[in-house]
């Protein structure tokens, strides 16, 4: 299994190279840093030369890419010019930590609720609660994220108007260190709820489908024929098998959450990766864009590997050679 993991990690290197090359080229050709200077009347040749030098604009794109890779593997992602030329790598890590503050609690809540709802719906297929869960899930899947976010904000504003007090903050991030525990909690709740609402909807559907397939299988009948209590049949024999396909879905969702959510973080003015990415792309900040792409690709690759290894633990039929 260790050899397999090592091999998988090595296999990600060409994957990362191809991915970053494509993004590097696309971002490089999608805008010209000199364009802004074209209408600048006070700018002299010196300003042009400084920018050409800064971005290596006198060299071909593949060569620039190779230079970027050489620096990147040494941990130097260059300055983020749109953020006062601070180190892009450090900036991304700082924002990623902020995104994780939402992603980790949201993920734990999502998995708990999705398993509970999925199992309950599958076991009581076509019951009223199953229909209710199905209906709400489709609502969650089809409504855009911003609807939930704005709705939650509206409720808070309404409470502020009606009672002069609101339980949760509408925008911004508070931390324990700077603001204390309670403000931290009050600022985290709404964005976490938004993420939970949106992702739980689809995950509970997957869980229900996985569980339905399992509880109609022969070995569940065998377990019942043994005289096992229903709870043991469902949880020990049923859920244990239904979790196997979920491992992949969790890995994808968790990687996506850690990579920052553009809409949710933007609406709640959360200093996470999502708004940072939007700003980097719109301002054509190549170094910053590349640092974010690098991190999100790594997240996807790492969590896919985690999922594949989890498969081996959950399913004895899978062997790694």
């Amino acid at each position, binding site marked *: 299994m260790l050899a397999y993991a090592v091999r998988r990690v090595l296999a990600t290197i060409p994957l990362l190279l191809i991915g970053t090359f494509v993004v590097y080229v696309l971002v490089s050709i999608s805008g010209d840093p000199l364009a802004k200077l074209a209408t600048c009347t006070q700018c002299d040749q010196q300003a042009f030369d400084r920018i050409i030098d800064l971005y290596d604009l006198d060299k071909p794109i593949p060569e620039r890419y190779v230079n970027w890779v050489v620096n990147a593997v040494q941990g130097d992602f260059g300055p983020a010019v749109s953020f006062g030329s601070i180190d892009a790598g450090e900036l991304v890590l700082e924002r990623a930590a902020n995104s994780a503050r939402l992603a980790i609690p949201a993920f734990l809540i999502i998995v708990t609720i999705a398993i509970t709802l999925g199992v309950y719906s599958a076991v009581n297929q076509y019951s009223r609660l199953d229909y209710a869960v199905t209906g709400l899930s489709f609502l969650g899947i089809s409504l855009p994220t911003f609807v939930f976010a704005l709705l939650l904000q509206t409720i808070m504003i309404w409470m502020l108007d009606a009672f002069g007090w609101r339980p949760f903050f509408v925008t911004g991030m508070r931390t324990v260190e700077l603001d204390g525990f309670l403000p931290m909690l009050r600022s985290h709740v709404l964005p976490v709820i938004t993420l939970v609402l949106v992702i739980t909807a689809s995950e509970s559907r997957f869980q229900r489908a996985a569980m339905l397939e399992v509880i109609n299988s022969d070995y569940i009948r065998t377990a019942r024929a043994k005289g*096992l209590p229903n709870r043991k049949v469902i949880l020990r024999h049923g859920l244990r098998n239904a979790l196997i396909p979920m491992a992949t879905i969790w890995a994808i969702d968790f990687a996506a959450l850690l990579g920052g959510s553009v809409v949710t973080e933007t609406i709640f003015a959360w200093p996470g990766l999502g708004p940072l990415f939007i700003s980097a792309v719109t301002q054509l900040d190549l170094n910053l864009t590349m640092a974010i792409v690098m991190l999100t690709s790594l997240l996807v690759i790492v969590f896919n590997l985690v999922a594949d290894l989890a498969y081996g633990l959950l*399913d004895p039929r899978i062997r790694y050679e």
Partner: protein
Amino acid sequence: MTTPLLEVDDLRVTFRTDDGDVRAVQGLSFTVAEGETLAVVGESGSGKTVAALAIMRLLPRTARVEGTIRFRGTSLLDLDEDGMRDLQGDDLAMIFQDPMTALNPVFTVGDQIVEAIRTHRDVTESAARARATELLDLVGIPEPKQRIDNYPHEFSGGMRQRAMIAMGIANEPKLLIADEPTTALDVTVQAQVMEVVRTVQEATGTAVMLVTHDLGLVAGTADRIQVMYGGRLFEAGPTDTVFYGSRNPYTLGLMASIPSAVGRTARRLEPIPGSPPSLIALPEGCAFSPRCAFATEACRDEPELRVVDAASGHATRCHRAEELPDLVAARATATAGSEGGAAEPGAAGDGAA
């Protein structure tokens, strides 16, 4: 006569579907005595598996089960969930058709047998494991001490079915229902598995209800046979009586369609024409009449299951039961070159057994 181990009276099972009610079992009555082997034979869709699942109360909730099922005097359909669970896997056990899918892939074979034991017996994990090893040895798994920690996918089909049997008999049931235990297996393995069932029966004295579509398999194993068709009992009696003196055209048809391994007769297999009836819209009268070579006007009325030989308890559902041997003989002479379908089945049965 003492009270039988299992007493099924007027069992009816109906599934409600969008196309109409599927009457899978219609008025089935039979008994199983302690220690005996009863074979329930019929084509796919004859209701034999549904009847077995109804006894185990393992049918989905959409099934409507009526009638009475008494097991050692207890009415199973009136038991609450807890009461039924106490019986399931203990005095009343079942093994299933497809050993490939009937074992849970994520637990070891040992774990699954240990679970069956500890659900009903208050024993330690290690005692249950020791018992599980014994059981695997009994059903003929080589090196049971090592194989107990294997997962089902590390077992062959035959070994999995042996493991299933070990799990079924773990608590020495009074009645073991085997639903097509050999259908998914190779012919050579089939014989081995039936041998295991016999060994187990000798070791534990359990009664066996063997559900199968394979008459050949039944010949050497069963004390009594009951033949089902269209959710009804068509013929019932001691194995030899049914094999050599069947009074039912459907049973005769089944036997004529078994290939014989002995006697290089050039006899052609005679399939039963047509296919089993739809259980939603059964034919008027005798359910078999549309496929029956001997059907007459009288068969428009549904025949009763009636006893033709009180001594052996041989019963059949056919208007023409008395004249049937003559009819078959006449038909045999009419088909030139053939030795006669009805005279053959005995040999066919012995051959397959």
